[in-house]
């Protein structure tokens, strides 16, 4: 059985919804970041799947977008984790339900 494009897209949709699950239903700030990273990875998988199954242009556009997306996701993870550490130093908690005041 050779997988068609639909199978790849369904796997990527499953990964996206699992990431959404992690981002919506966890209370620890780091897990929300993990969920966001998984959603980005699912989107990358989508790009590469469409590149592979579609017409082949000369500069491989899907691959380029995925490459830049990985770099940007890494930068965003770094800054997000730095923010989690900074917030923890101030409030001494990482439970996002308890971060509900605008005053520092």
């Amino acid at each position, binding site marked *: *059985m*050779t*997988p*068609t*494009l*639909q199978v*790849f897209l*369904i*796997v990527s*949709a*499953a*990964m*996206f*919804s*699992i*990431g*959404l*699950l*992690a981002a*919506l*239903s*966890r*209370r*620890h700030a*780091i*897990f929300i*970041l*993990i*969920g966001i*990273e*998984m959603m980005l*990875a699912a989107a990358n*998988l989508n790009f*590469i799947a469409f590149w*592979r*199954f579609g017409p*082949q242009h000369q*500069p*491989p556009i899907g*691959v*380029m977008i*995925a*490459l830049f997306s*990985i*770099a*940007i*996701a*890494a*930068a*965003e*993870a770094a*800054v997000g*984790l*730095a*923010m*989690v*550490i*900074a917030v*923890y130093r101030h409030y001494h908690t990482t*439970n996002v339900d308890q971060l509900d005041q605008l005053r520092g």
Partner: protein
Amino acid sequence: MNGAAFVIIAIGTLAAALAAATLPNLMHAALSFAVAFVGIAAFFFLLGAEFVGLALVFIYVGAVAVLIVFTILLTHRDAGKDHGFNWGGAIVALAVFGGLTWAILKTQSLAMLAPHMATLTVKRIGTALMTTYVWPLQCVGLLLTAALIGALILVLEEKR
């Protein structure tokens, strides 16, 4: 493209991702996150984009996963467990998955097999990066520098 390999990798990746999203123990969840990304890199290898797969392993498993475990270490108090699980999130995620799958299965034009493709060499990626995509490359470099400096400033101890 091998069907059996695809099924095994898909099951492994989705299981690891589910573990990362639902395990109460923080460290185990972070480590299954790393395993899920190795699975996604395996998908990229299957699809013929080896350079992107290797870059994914290098960046995510080598750097982002290490960052995440360091942050868990620096911000945990006594119990390293995550309390409480919001079930509303599960319903929303299931609804999103249902909607996406229905849309994918309904579109008949997506039920195609892979066309034959010349191997994507790193040379082609490099040429494309330096000719067509040189401005995005410079912008991403600038962005990474800004992120580096910003992250460092955020975690600097305030001078007393």
